[in-house]
């Protein structure tokens, strides 16, 4: 208890805690509850809250070849004014980890001592991180969109392990094996700035782990999450795998 009071006083003295309206006394473990908007930082903003650059993506050659070929096809289609099909075009959910950073849609963290529930405004996607139980073996987890996530605290950082993402659920088309584990290190840089450092570990398909960070800034306290049900999707995939737009006939 004394250590906490001491740390808090130090934090105040060092000016780490801003005196803003949203400043909260640091707790241990920290509480990530709230609604977090994607943060990029306008030009001129303090760069320390922005996400650092990702590490290079290095797929093993036998997996990189088809991946690059697909990207080349997508680029060629774009030149023709066409877009190749992705699951997203038919409103299939993004799953983990993509749901953590879809466009500028915020994510909501609801934290209790035993579980953190994360709700993405985009497509109302939900994942749960269990804090009070161990991870299962990969072969015992039914592959799905969100996998199974367990977390534990390392100091003020929440470390999350996720397994069981099915093959069609990818980050930007990057292929992965059933052995993929996603490690997230989530921490507050300041009361209103949160980083989720996401590492894709896949000894089968990746030469080395791939790490990127999603930076968040707390939304205004009166922000209410907007409903998002994909019930007016006008896009469809034609017989050639091209995304087309359905227009209303009248």
């Amino acid at each position, binding site marked *: 208890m004394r250590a906490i009071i001491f740390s808090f006083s130090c934090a105040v003295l060092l000016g780490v805690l801003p005196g803003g309206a949203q400043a909260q006394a640091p707790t241990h473990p920290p509480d990530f509850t709230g609604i977090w908007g*994607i943060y*990029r*930082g*306008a*030009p001129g903003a303090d760069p320390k809250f*922005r*996400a*650092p*650059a*990702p590490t290079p993506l290095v797929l093993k050659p036998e997996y990189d070849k088809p991946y690059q070929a697909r*990207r080349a096809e*997508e680029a060629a*289609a*774009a030149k023709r*004014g*066409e*877009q*190749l*099909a*992705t699951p*997203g*075009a038919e*409103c299939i959910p*993004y799953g983990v980890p*993509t749901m953590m*950073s*879809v*466009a*500028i*849609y915020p994510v909501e963290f609801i934290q209790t001592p035993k579980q953190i529930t994360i709700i993405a*405004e*985009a*497509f109302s996607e939900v994942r749960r991180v269990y804090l009070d139980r161990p991870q299962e073996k990969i072969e015992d987890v039914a592959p799905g969109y969100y996998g199974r996530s367990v977390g534990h605290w390392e100091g003020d950082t929440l470390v999350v392990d996720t397994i069981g993402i099915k093959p069609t659920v990818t980050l*930007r*088309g990057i292929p992965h094996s059933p052995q993929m584990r996603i490690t997230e290190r989530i921490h507050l840089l300041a009361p209103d700035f949160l980083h989720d450092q*996401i590492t894709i570990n896949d000894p089968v398909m990746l030469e080395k782990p791939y790490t*990127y*960070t*999603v930076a968040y800034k707390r939304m205004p306290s009166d922000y209410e999450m*907007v*409903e*998002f*049900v*994909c*019930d*007016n*999707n*006008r*896009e469809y995939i034609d017989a050639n795998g091209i*995304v087309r*737009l359905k*227009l*209303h*006939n*009248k």
Partner: protein
Amino acid sequence: MILHAFRTKAHCAVVLAAAIFGSASMASAHHSFTMFDMSKKVTLTGTVTSFEWTNPHSYIEIDAPDEKGVMKHWSIELGSPSILMQSGWKFSTLKTGEKLTIIINPLKSGQNGGFLSQANLPDGRVLYNGPRQEPPPGPAQK
């Protein structure tokens, strides 16, 4: 590295603002700007037949004469409600039967559709298609 729109997700993410700022951003950026001719603008003045405040995109359905003066029905794509609300749109902003002037980026296919660039509302306000009080940026240059 600017994240390019490989994923087609049928919502108007004016994430292109993100693409411009976000060299380190991993936000799934998308938009099917490839379907629209972002270099071309067409102005339509007509009558709203419906305003669909929906996901993944909102739509303005409008009867308006084309460039040759022939009355046509148009389907105009906007961002999702969450995005639009940030720049002043509401579910009740447009009513069936209202006259409206809009500027669109038309579909490359030549069909009667497009991506909204700007809406000049009957009450005099001008609203854009994104989270900001300005037109959304075009596709990011790589």
